[in-house]
């Protein structure tokens, strides 16, 4: 059964801290792994990863995929209160469905 497991479920840090969010997955016919940020309503896209070992970076956020060990991490450096959100990990397979994990709820305190 295809699934995505994220850890930790929730995290509270102070501004300026660095956080690492984890995502492990099981999927038949893997195509891609995606990270989203959900603040109020709609999840917004952060990264899509398809190849192992290639880091994707956007500002203070970065992510990398390990297809051998079936996991991905999302790093956020120098966190700000605006980073407070739920971070969702999802994978896609040959069926083109996006299967999401439970998310990590991040709260950044001023």
């Amino acid at each position, binding site marked *: 059964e295809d699934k995505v497991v994220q850890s930790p479920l929730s995290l509270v840090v102070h501004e300026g801290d660095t956080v690492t969010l984890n995502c492990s997955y099981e999927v038949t016919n893997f195509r891609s792994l995606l990270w989203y940020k959900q603040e109020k309503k*709609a*999840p917004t*896209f952060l990264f*899509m990863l398809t190849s192992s070992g290639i880091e994707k970076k956007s500002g203070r956020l970065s992510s990398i995929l390990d297809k051998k060990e079936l996991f991905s991490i999302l790093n956020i450096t120098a966190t700000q209160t605006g980073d407070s959100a739920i971070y969702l990990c*999802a994978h*896609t397979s040959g069926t*083109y*469905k*996006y299967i*999401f994990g439970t998310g990590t709820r991040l709260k950044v305190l001023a």
Partner: protein
Amino acid sequence: EADIYQTPRYLVIGTGKKITLECSQTMGHDKMYWYQQDPGMELHLIHYSYGVNSTEKGDLSSESTVSRIRTEHFPLTLESARPSHTSQYLCASSEHSIPGVSNTEAFFGQGTRLTVV
């Protein structure tokens, strides 16, 4: 910026009513999806479509139904709403992918928060 729209944004209705949640996208995407999300919980796929006249049930059983008569439109219908249907419903779409190539990202609408009393 994603061009995918859901209406209504909020809906409070009585038990037994029939409702339709609207979802439209102007990006010409073939694939569309409906997810159900309870507060603080994960997104569960309840329906998806690969294109016109194609609909499939998702991984979470749902009493709702969907239709895909036009590429841009993917409405979800509850024939008889119950309090257990209270949830947030998120619609998404993604671009058609070439077989053997990775998918593109999915774009989400703003969601419909449904409350059945």
